[in-house]
């Protein structure tokens, strides 16, 4: 019986894990897992692992795990130092990967070959990338790791003279494309991203409304719907319990300040990436700045970056991708599909030889 090949593009993000498959299906789940705390909760859920939104909704009855932090698998920077925690992170991330693949492909059949490209942050270390290879073993038959901003550029077919700014929850990846695989000099990562905004927002609101009861999840949900950096706009109010009573609180200034807190690092990184590029091609780069990732949805961010670029670099034209959530996974899927069969075979052969040798 001929094998059926399925290609998947995966973006294992700090906040959300996103998948796109060439059978026409795509999905995402929050990168959270929960294990029932005791026999009662296990009975209630009727399963041993709860994923995504369901886990977040029932977090009081679950031990919650978030296996990805700052774009990489937790503790993968130093696996020897925290061996136990690293092992747990690998297990949890593996379960997450298995679950999201099952969502789009169903149970793996013997005649199925699943090929995948997984995105990794621009400056992920070899250990970070190896951890991704590790979790995919046995789930994906063939796997490739590619830089996330590169997959975004590949998906948009913008491989030359383009600057990608991918704003995620854990990292902001900035990468210049010049017709080849970006090297470390072409990319940079800053860690003031979506999670940082949430924390700043929480701190500011707590400082202003000391008696309000709030959590980081409440702040995140509110931010995802209302984030802005523009100077003028409507007042934004959040309903928070104050001593148990729902109260309407004005958080306009706090949200604005929190969202703006990531801008200086981004524009400085953009300035560096442009300024260190070949001067003959700098204009082309400034002309083609692409804003991707969930953070690109912050209202007014595009104009803010353009204004900073004008101030520091003389000019800048920024565009937002159409599907910020799926841009990385779509690009990874396209890369996976474009990869010739012989390259996959070569990689599989190389992988098995290395495994036998070690």
């Amino acid at each position, binding site marked *: 019986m001929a094998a059926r090949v399925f290609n998947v593009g995966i973006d294992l993000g700090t906040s959300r894990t996103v998948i796109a498959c060439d059978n026409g299906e795509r999905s995402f789940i929050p990168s959270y897992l929960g294990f029932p705390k005791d026999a009662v909760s296990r009975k209630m859920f009727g399963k041993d692992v709860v994923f995504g939104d369901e886990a977040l909704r029932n977090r009081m009855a679950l031990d919650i795990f978030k296996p990805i932090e700052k774009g990489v698998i937790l503790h993968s920077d130093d696996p020897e130092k925290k061996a136990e925690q690293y092992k747990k992170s690998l297990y949890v991330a593996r379960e997450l990967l298995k679950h999201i693949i099952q969502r789009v492909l169903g149970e793996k059949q013997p005649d199925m070959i699943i090929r995948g490209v997984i995105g990794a942050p621009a400056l992920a270390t070899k250990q970070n990338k190896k951890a991704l290879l590790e979790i995919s073993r046995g789930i994906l038959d063939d796997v490739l790791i590619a830089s996330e901003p590169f997959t975004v550029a590949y998906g948009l077919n913008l491989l030359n003279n383009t600057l990608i700014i991918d704003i995620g929850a854990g990292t902001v990846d900035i990468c210049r494309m010049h*017709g080849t*695989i970006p090297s470390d000099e072409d990319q940079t990562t800053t860690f003031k991203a979506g999670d940082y905004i949430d924390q700043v927002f929480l701190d500011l609101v707590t400082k202003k409304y000391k008696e309000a009861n709030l959590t980081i999840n409440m702040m995140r949900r509110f931010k995802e719907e209302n984030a802005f950096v523009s100077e003028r706009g409507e007042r934004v109010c959040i309903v928070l319990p104050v001593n148990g009573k729902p109260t309407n609180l004005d958080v306009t200034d706090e949200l604005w300040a929190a969202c703006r807190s990531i801008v200086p690092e981004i524009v400085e990184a953009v300035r560096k990436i442009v300024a260190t590029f070949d001067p003959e091609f700098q204009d082309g780069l400034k002309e083609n700045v692409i804003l991707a990732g969930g953070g690109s949805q912050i209202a007014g961010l595009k104009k803010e970056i353009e204004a900073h670029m004008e101030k520091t670099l003389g000019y800048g034209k920024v565009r937002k991708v159409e599907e910020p959530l799926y841009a990385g996974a779509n690009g990874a899927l396209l890369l996976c599909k474009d990869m*010739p069969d012989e390259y996959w075979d070569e990689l599989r052969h190389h992988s098995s030889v290395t495994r036998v040798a070690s």
Partner: protein
Amino acid sequence: MRYLSCGLGAIVEAGKYTCATVEYTGLVSYGALKFGGRVVAHSVRKVTTPVARGITLPFVGMKKVTHQIFGRKNYFDEKFKSVDEKLTNIEAKLVSIENRSMVIRSAVVPTMTPRKIDLGRQALLRKIVEANKSLIDS
């Protein structure tokens, strides 16, 4: 019976009779003409009406159809509006479903045939493979 007298009175009387005669003759002629005209008009109408009906019948039919389509106020506007509303609702539902991280199944299953890759793209893919091989080796 009146006797005609000579003189001016007789002349006036004769003139009056002449006028009455001419008037009567005119009335008789008018009546004859009117009657004749009626007969002719009736015959002409009898002949021409079916012909005219035959000629105009397709146009009457066309008028009825066009009236049905265009005559109703904002017929197309209403139809387009309802279709547009339905599409907007479907799109909103899809977005809401997708936001709840449900799987969206495409109506059209994409073809599995690979794209034609040019040499430049092949070289790029080769580099990715090499980078991954060195990652496995490390």
